[in-house]
């Protein structure tokens, strides 16, 4: 029946319409708090993100996890209301409120309908200026972190991710250990340390308030002044962690999960910092290698071999060099074969220029999808937060698409040769080690550890 249907042939695209990233304006409050406001008039909603220099790289020596604990405790009570009352107050306004710390920044953010934004902002101001860190909530969130760790490690992929950081980075680097801290670290954290971290890092002079949504710059600035104008403090000192690899020779690291149905496989090495001048060539290179569904690694491992449900590669972007990782989960019996294919794809990226077709697939995807990434106030606020976190130029979003389109096949080859480092590559397998050890040794990739 369907074979006889006559359908039109493939159409051609019409002319693209121009688009630009939402215009934003900067202001500075008298207390030094920077504002970035992007009016977006689509639906009656707004997102506010308050960014402070309180990421995990600022964890003092011996206090792993303090940045995350402090961020999460921001929503657990002020001197005027306890955690339950604070939560209730936000939720009565229909506000979604979150607080977390990544490696570089701590963020307290909220999304609310604009009619309720002034009230929600006022609560946010109370949270930033006057957190109480109730002892009971400190202990509760510590034990929630320990419970999260237990959960994470019972997942093969969580265990693989945590172990891989430790395989890649020198033990003295903060990046070698989980950003939220391990059990022993977290157990030792105290309320006094949380207070000290808050006092040292949560200061308006080093902070930025991003406001995106259905309101004017003036209205947003007034709201910020009312909520946060009375907050005071000098800018915190800048921090850095040591970034060095754990080892300079290749090795295979095996972690045994005897009953695992699949192997979690990771390949990678220490990558580059987000502000690196090669960012755009690296972005395009990785899209071709493993960043898209139609990338070399996924088409090889999933579509050609059926080894996996999915395989990808990524550079984890941080202020300082985060990891480059190839990540997949494969049937145990093809672990070595899958690793070999992934390594071949990495070598192939470095040995010859990619096809023009591959380049344009990656660049036209990254170029075309750009407006689709910024449909929501939340996504726009996250993009502006990255601008702040990584110190990107003011015209970054306006130039993004031309920068992507400007990458050539030679740039990609150069980026692959400079930033993919087969000689420094580490391999990690979490799975049925006894069943795969022999084939992993036969790969002759490097020393087999574990």
């Amino acid at each position: 029946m369907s074979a006889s249907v006559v359908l039109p042939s493939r159409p051609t695209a019409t002319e693209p319409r121009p688009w630009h990233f939402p215009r934003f304006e900067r202001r500075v409050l008298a207390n030094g708090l920077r504002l970035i406001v992007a009016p977006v008039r689509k639906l009656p909603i707004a997102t506010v993100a308050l960014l402070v220099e309180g990421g995990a790289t600022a964890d003092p020596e011996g206090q792993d996890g303090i940045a995350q604990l402090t961020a999460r405790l921001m929503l657990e009570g002020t001197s005027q209301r306890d955690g339950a009352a604070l939560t209730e107050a936000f939720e009565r306004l229909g506000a979604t409120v979150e607080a977390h710390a990544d490696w570089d920044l701590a963020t307290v953010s909220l999304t609310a309908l604009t009619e309720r934004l002034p009230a929600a902002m006022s609560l946010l101001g109370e949270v930033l200026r006057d957190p109480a860190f109730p002892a009971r909530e400190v202990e509760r969130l510590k034990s929630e972190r320990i419970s999260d760790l237990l959960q994470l490690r019972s997942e093969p992929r969580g265990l693989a991710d945590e172990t891989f950081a430790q395989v890649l980075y020198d033990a003295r680097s903060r990046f070698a250990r989980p950003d939220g801290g391990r059990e022993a670290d977290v157990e030792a954290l105290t309320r006094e340390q949380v207070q000290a971290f808050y006092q040292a890092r949560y200061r308006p002079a080093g902070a930025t308030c991003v406001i995106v949504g259905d309101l004017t710059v003036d209205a947003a600035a007034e709201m910020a002044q009312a909520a946060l104008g009375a907050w005071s403090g000098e800018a915190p000192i800048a921090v850095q962690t040591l970034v060095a690899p754990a080892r300079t020779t290749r090795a295979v690291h095996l972690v045994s999960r005897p009953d695992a149905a699949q192997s979690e496989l990771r390949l990678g090495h220490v990558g580059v910092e987000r502000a690196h001048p090669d960012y755009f060539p690296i972005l395009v290179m990785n899209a071709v290698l493993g960043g898209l569904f139609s990338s070399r690694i996924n088409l090889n491992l999933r579509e050609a071999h059926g080894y996996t449900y999915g395989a990808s590669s990524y550079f984890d972007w941080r202020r300082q060099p985060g990891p480059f990782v190839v990540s997949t989960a494969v049937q145990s019996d093809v672990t070595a074969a899958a690793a070999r294919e992934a390594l071949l794809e990495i070598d192939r990226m470095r040995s010859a220029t990619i096809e023009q077709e591959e380049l344009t697939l990656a660049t036209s995807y990254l170029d075309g999808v750009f407006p689709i990434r910024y449909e929501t106030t939340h996504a726009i606020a996250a993009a502006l937060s990255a601008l702040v976190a990584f110190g990107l130029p003011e015209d970054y979003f306006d130039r993004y698409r031309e920068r992507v389109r400007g990458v050539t096949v030679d740039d990609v080859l150069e980026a692959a040769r400079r930033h993919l480092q087969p000689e420094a590559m580490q391999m990690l397998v979490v799975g049925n080690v006894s069943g795969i050890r022999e084939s992993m040794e036969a790969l002759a990739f490097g020393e087999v550890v574990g």
Partner: protein
Amino acid sequence: MRIPIDTFRLENGLFVTLSEDHTAPLVAVNLWYHVGSANEREGRTGFAHLFEHMLFQGSADVGTNEHFMLVQRAGGTLNGSTWLERTNYFETVPSHELELVLWLEANRMGKLLPAMTQQKLDTQRDVVKNERLWSMDNQPYGTWWERLPALCFPASHPFHHSLIGSMEDLDAASLEDVAAFFSTWYAPDNAVLSIAGDFDPAVVRTLVEKHFGPIPPSEARPAPPEVPEAETFGMWKREIVPDDVALPRLFLAFLSPVFGSDAYYAASVCGAILGMRKGSRLHRALVREKQVAAEAQAFTYDLTRGSDLLVVDATARPGISAEQLESEVASEIDRLIAEGVTESEVARAVTLIETDMISSLQSAGERADKLSLFATYFGEPRLVNEQVDRYRAVTAEAVNAFIAARLGEDNRASLLFVPREPQDAAANEGVMAEAGA
């Protein structure tokens, strides 16, 4: 807040819904086929989901994996998903590439079979097996979404069996089976096409007619499966699953009114009072106050026939036993029955739901998906604009009536995951140390 909605139907039965928005030059296309795992026959489970994979393997004029490549080259995002009562396919692209997506969707609706090969079927079967391993078998608690419907619905019930299917059934699938499934269900008169975003409505009508108009309707489609209606389980069903998990976790399900009914909104608000966000009853009592749970939430399956499920999902704190977790959750439910909810609790829940709804409608893809949902299940996409009002109409009295009717001990199903004792945990500790060396 209402989004503009227009509809029309092609002669072959394809129902089309449109929602214009010119704030950005992008457009979402969303196609729902009214077929899901509930339409599968015994011995042929997993077909609906396997099909979702096969639809990306090319059609008469589109090469293997070319669908993904063409959409990504156009600067678009795409995917598909399978559920008990529907399968959907969706793309968001720059608006000047709209016709490409219509062509791709029409080509696979009208001419998939000429491109189907044994090799493609074999590869996708392997991919699905890996998907199963990855998402279920190698994931703590991963089997819950197969076990919970199996516990709640009897063996003969269309919602009973696994959505991803049995590996034996998938192995037994022949090209002929696959072709028969396709011809039966993947037809314009069993589909809804929604388009949201930046388009010219007159042009879109012409394009939809041009690309989808020639596709014939399905010749014979079996009547939808009989779905028995039940108010309650008539008992407290229980299943205990020893698994490679660190902490006990409880899924406690209740049969609840079907999606879209008036009583559904009361059930949904009850779910939000129990388990939406940190101010909910379960989070407040079990996570914050008693500290017996690490997490607690509630959700509905949104099933439209027979009965829906309201599910409470709670994970124990370290040191809390599975029995204790279950009894603490049950006592919160009992307390809800005894006390009822207040208007103030209803107001908190409805306000949160309202913000979430408006927030999600910012995305063209979400808008198109909601249009398809209401058009597929109820023939009326305009219901998307009624949702906030329907939630606002829910009273404490309605929620309390739901609670009295549905949360009792005669309508509970517990799926309780328990850490497998004790050798595995010890073995894992050992290798962690080894990995660190």
